């Protein structure tokens, strides 16, 4: 390559670089100047809710005495492999309130015996008062990629429920609930005039 050819190539490259830089700033200035006047375009979503009735499906008489409330939040994850794209993942946070206490409707016929100002009472075992304790409408999705069907969502709900039950129904909480139940019942019985009170619990 001759010296003249080399100079020609270098000169062309420098000219292109200068032209490119000037063109960049000119285009940027034009965009900034006319940007506000340019037609705007965007996709929007209009959400509306139809008025639907609220139906009382059932009314049940119950006798559940709650002594301990455990508020719990649990994270449940699911992921699945994709051959080409990145893996799908769903991370959700469930909120639940578990209520521990005794079901008075399970009080046995021979659970109470009295003699003068003495009373002996055998209370039903401490239990989780209701299996439906998750407020699912408050569930938060922390991360979601891919589509997830009803089956997976039900599985995740059940998993969250089991984690919460394991957390709440430990020996310590059950014992504390028994103590609270005994204290409350003793107070009620004293108010009714009993002076010698014996309270015990049915074994499960």
């Amino acid at each position: 390559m001759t010296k003249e050819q080399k100079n020609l190539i270098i000169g062309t490259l420098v000219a292109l670089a200068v032209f490119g830089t000037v063109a960049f700033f000119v285009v940027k200035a034009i965009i900034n100047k006319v940007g506000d006047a340019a037609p705007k375009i965007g996709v929007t979503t209009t959400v509306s809710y139809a008025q639907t009735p609220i139906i009382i499906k059932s009314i049940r008489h119950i006798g559940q005495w709650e002594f301990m409330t455990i508020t719990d939040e649990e994270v449940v994850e699911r992921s699945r492999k994709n051959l080409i794209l990145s893996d799908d993942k769903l991370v959700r946070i469930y909120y639940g309130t578990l209520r521990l206490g005794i079901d008075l409707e399970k009080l046995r016929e021979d659970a109470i015996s009295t003699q003068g100002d003495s009373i002996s009472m055998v209370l039903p075992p401490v239990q989780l008062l209701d299996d439906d304790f998750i407020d699912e409408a408050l569930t938060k999705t922390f991360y979601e990629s891919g589509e997830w069907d009803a089956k997976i969502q039900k599985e995740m709900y059940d998993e969250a429920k089991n984690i919460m039950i394991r957390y709440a129904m430990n020996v310590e909480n059950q014992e504390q609930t028994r103590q609270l139940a005994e204290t409350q019942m003793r107070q009620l019985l004293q108010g009714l005039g009993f002076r010698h009170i014996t309270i015990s619990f049915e074994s499960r």
Partner: protein
Amino acid sequence: MRKVKAFLLTITLVSPLFCGCQKQDGTPDDDANAIPQLVNHIQQCSRLYTTDYRIHKVVMVQADKQLETSFLGVGFNVPLGERRLLIPMEATLKGYIDFSNFSEDDIENDGEKLTITLPDPEVMLTSSRIDHDGTKQYVSWYLSNFDTTEQTAHAAKGRQDIIDKVKNDSQQKRHIVEAARQNAANLLIPLISRMGFDEQNITITFRQDFSFENLKIHID
């Protein structure tokens, strides 16, 4: 793609925390960098639940997409497609008597007649459940389906509708108050009579100046 990579990196960094931490009462988890703080707490209480209401609602959502544009200062909306969602859901409300502040002063026993004055009834939303099998969506083929975030957000609206209905419907409130009172009496009178009191001499009363309009509705 960058978002996904960032997420995976975060998950990788915090995963040892997931394995190593143990929950303790009243303390949030250590993985605050990744997942919003998780709260677990235990509270003592004394509530006698006397009535359980299962309430059903179908949330019907229309979330149509449209293209919004303008030309020469005039705006246009061009429909892009339909997105419809049906979510059947159920909520549980419970009527109860709060015994937390109940004391011996609320029991009058003159040796023959027994009068118990119970605290005012209250009501609490204790759970909500989405019927995932019954959830249906009708979406134009070129638009994306409702993801779980959208579905739950719409279910939350249904939950709020149920709460508002109970709060604002006088007839509903009257029914809840009367049922909670009646059921409390039906539960306690036989229980106390088994302790040797004559059922005829037991009276369960409530605060005289309580109006069903004052019914407290608690939401966890």
